[in-house]
């Protein structure tokens, strides 16, 4: 069950409101929830303890913020502390004076070392380097073959030999020198940290090649074991960094925090898929969101980019910006979004959703969504382009064709019309970098608020623009410290966003003003 942390905090932290400061005693309840959330996220128990104490130190005695609820304030502090721990110095890759620069990969079985080795090779190649892959995993059947195939895909040569891992590594390094390669990436077999023999072997491999960078590959879904494993590898090999893999799953990834705390070395890279290109620098702020269960919107966007047809999405985005979002566009988008997964599932991943909204998300039956789709499909293209054409007899036909009732068709049309009005009313430059704030505060806030409960919904549907804006705003902002999350998205190129995200009330608290003329001027194309 997706349950935003600050929602839980709101329930327990009632006492926090009564005084002007966050006192230690008051914090206890809040921190207990934080502890639970972190444990649910697979952060190791010892790390949770020290982390919670650090947050306590940060929060105790803090003056209550004017714009945040106490619960949100605590979450913000937690978020900031998370980003601080996860981030810090980045791994600076400096190249050896006498090439090649040697990189050694180690980790448990199945963590993703071989795929990561190839990804690293590709990454370096794209940086203009000349890497060699060395396959020193002679344990797993066909491991070298796998590396060879991946190497081909990356366009990087692979060296191996059926001798023994230490010899192969050493010979690989020689080969790299002989060929004038400037980076040598050594893949090793997965091994248990408690396997003395194999840990001794990897130590000998390390001695043989004297790596400049020893990186531990960790699976993002690792549980409490992360610390024991990382500690053992660190003691044996003196790690320089960590690579986190399989971040395209939905594991919260607390192992990242555990490993970072215990090893103290930067998490250098994040692997986000099975393709060689699914490899990126690690973003501490995104990881912090994810660990706190606040949804990883940017990853969702990335996933959306990958699965959804880009052209379709862009076309619809353009249509939206120009205020001419039609039912056709809607249908196209709906189909794209459904490729991503169940709608309820997607909803859960979006932050800034109020509790009511998320409850609604849980209740979404994808069959209902199919019904909406069916109604739109039962329309003719001209009807979709201009719904005002749809008279009584057409409604009947559409209802019959989609297996619904005319009331359903009516409702859909009415709501779509209102949505269109809202989109158009946002104003010029309303959507675009920085402008999503407007969307967050005004339109989207309204949307979120509208969706945030039957009460508000009834009020809103009754007459758009009549709702009490303060209520709507608060409904949206209730959902997680990143109530402004969606608004924050618009900032810059969307790669990073401010940690924590303060929840701002709806912009200007003003009713959704419709601009005279109703049209949005199209943004300048870059």
């Amino acid at each position: 069950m997706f349950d935003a942390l600050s929602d839980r905090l709101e329930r327990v932290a009632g006492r926090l409101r009564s005084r002007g400061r966050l006192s230690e005693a008051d914090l206890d309840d809040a921190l207990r929830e934080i502890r639970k959330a972190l444990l649910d996220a697979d952060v190791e128990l010892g790390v949770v303890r020290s982390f919670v104490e650090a947050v306590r130190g940060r929060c105790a005695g803090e003056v209550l913020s004017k714009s945040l609820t106490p619960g949100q304030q605590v979450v913000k502090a937690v978020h900031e502390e998370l980003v601080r721990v996860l981030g810090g110095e980045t791994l600076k890759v400096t190249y050896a004076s006498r090439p090649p620069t040697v990189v050694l990969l180690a980790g448990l079985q199945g963590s993703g070392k071989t795929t990561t080795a190839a990804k690293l090779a590709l990454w370096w190649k794209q940086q203009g380097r000349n890497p060699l892959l060395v396959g020193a995993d002679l344990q797993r059947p066909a491991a070298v073959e796998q590396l060879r195939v991946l190497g081909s895909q990356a366009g990087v040569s692979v060296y191996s030999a059926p001798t023994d891992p230490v010899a192969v590594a050493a010979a690989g390094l020689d080969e790299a020198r002989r060929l004038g390669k400037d980076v040598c990436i050594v893949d090793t077999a997965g091994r248990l940290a408690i396997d003395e023999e194999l840990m001794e072997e990897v130590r000998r491999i390390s001695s043989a090649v004297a790596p400049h960078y020893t990186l531990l590959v960790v699976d993002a879904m690792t549980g409490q074991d992360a610390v024991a494993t990382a500690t053992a590898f660190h003691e044996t090999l003196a790690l320089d960094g960590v690579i986190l893999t399989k971040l395209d799953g939905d594991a919260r990834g607390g192992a990242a925090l555990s490993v970072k705390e215990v090893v103290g070395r930067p998490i250098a890279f994040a692997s986000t898929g099975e393709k060689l290109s699914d490899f990126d620098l690690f973003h501490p702020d995104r990881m912090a969101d994810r660990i706190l269960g606040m949804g990883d919107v940017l990853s969702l966007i990335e996933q959306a980019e990958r699965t959804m047809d880009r052209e379709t999405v862009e076309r619809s985005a353009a249509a939206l910006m120009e205020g001419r979002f039609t039912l056709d566009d809607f249908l196209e988008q709906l189909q794209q979004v459904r490729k991503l997964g169940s709608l309820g599932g997607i909803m859960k991943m979006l932050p800034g959703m109020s509790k009511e909204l998320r409850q609604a998300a849980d209740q979404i039956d994808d069959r209902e969504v199919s019904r909406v789709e069916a109604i739109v499909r039962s329309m003719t293209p001209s009807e979709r382009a201009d719904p005002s054409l749809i008279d009584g007899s057409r409604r009947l036909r559409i209802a019959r064709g989609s297996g619904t009732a005319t009331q359903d068709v009516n409702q859909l049309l009415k709501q779509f019309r209102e949505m269109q009005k809202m989109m158009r009313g946002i104003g010029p430059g309303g959507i675009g970098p920085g402008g999503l704030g407007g969307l967050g505060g005004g339109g989207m806030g309204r949307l979120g608020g509208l969706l945030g409960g039957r009460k508000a919904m009834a009020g809103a549907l009754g007459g758009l623009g009549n709702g009490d804006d303060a209520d709507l705003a608060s409904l949206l902002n209730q959902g997680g410290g990143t109530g402004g999350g969606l608004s924050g998205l618009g900032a810059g190129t969307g790669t990073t966003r401010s940690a924590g995200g303060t929840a701002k009330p709806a912009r200007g608290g003003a009713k959704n003003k419709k601009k005279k003329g109703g049209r949005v001027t199209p943004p300048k194309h870059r």
Partner: protein
Amino acid sequence: MVVLWIVLAVVVGLAVTAGVTTRSRRRRRRPVTEPETRPGLRPPTKPPEPTRPTEPERSGTGAPPARMAPPAEAPEVAEALEAAEAELAEEERREGLVEAPAEAPSLRERLGRARGLFSGLRSLRGRGALDGATWDDLEEALLRADVGVATTDALLEDLRRRVASKEIAGGDQLLGALRADLVDLLEVEARWDGATDAELAGGRAAPGDDHEVVAPVGRSLRFDGEPGVVDVWLFVGVNGVGKTTTVGKLARRETAAGRSVLLAAGDTFRAAAGEQLSLWAARTGAEIVRGAEGGDPSAVVFDAVQRAAARGNDLVLADTAGRLHTKVNLVEELKKIRRVADRPPGRVTEVLLVLDATTGQNGLVQAREFTEAVACTGVVLTKLDGTAKGGGVVAVQRELALPVKLVGLGEGPDDLVPFDPAAFIDALLS
């Protein structure tokens, strides 16, 4: 229609944000250059990067999927056999182990070797008064074992109640009670009322799917052995958990038990996955059916079932590619594989979810999602020979009534033992 607003909100929201970030991201995409050939090394021949299905394939009923390239015949198998023989000889020299041991070791024996004596929570033994520290210790032991907050809280709350009502007195009794509770949780039987009551299978059967919900039979692996029917055991799970290795180990076990086993290399995506399974086939004396790399996995499984029926193999072990349950298209692909495998003469009698003991709370999510998709019948818990305790399976059994049937304890062909709840819990609490 609340749904409409929600749909519109999500669609609009995603479209806008995706559209915005797409524009800015596009500039940053770097092209992948062509591979170069380097003399002196094996020149990289560039195989096409296999693509995962982007369209959900709904084959429904009807004709079997179009045949892909015929399964790998003699030359590849011979090659693999040579390589495997060399490897096996090397292994034998090193280990002196030639055949499967006459008696498979028990879980208790294996874990005992890995973890030392089962000491239980030493601090609790002999403790008279139960104080806050006691409960902290218990909680810590459970959480560290990946049992999870919800299950831990439920267990401890119940124990607290029983201590308060004097049902339990003293540390030894408390520890005993905890142990008993945990073992009980693992012994939850799956009650089956036929295909309609799929609730205990861990969720409704997906609408539109026409597979029969298979009733698990305790912890043994179901094998019907009906003439004219090929038993198929399907192996599913996320990436890197140990599916292929488990298939290999089971091939060893079943061939040693006298069954004729055919492996289906249903992982057509991962580089060299077919080779990996071929080596296992050679090592264990099982036959194998492979398809073209990047081909349709359902076709491979279909071919395997056909061949098994024609040649009279008893059992098909079907490996599949690792896939995250969050990827809708891949889950659809898996559903199709199951459907195809379940068509006569095939019958899917086991769908084994392979779970990694090092996985944390996500294990429960995996179990839930995979069971909903393909109606898993049991769990294989792998990598339990490490430091991870694998406590996540307690919640899996508790919430989904999905039994752990086998435990993997290493990378060798004999490192597979039946699940023993008592031994498992003893190790967990140690």
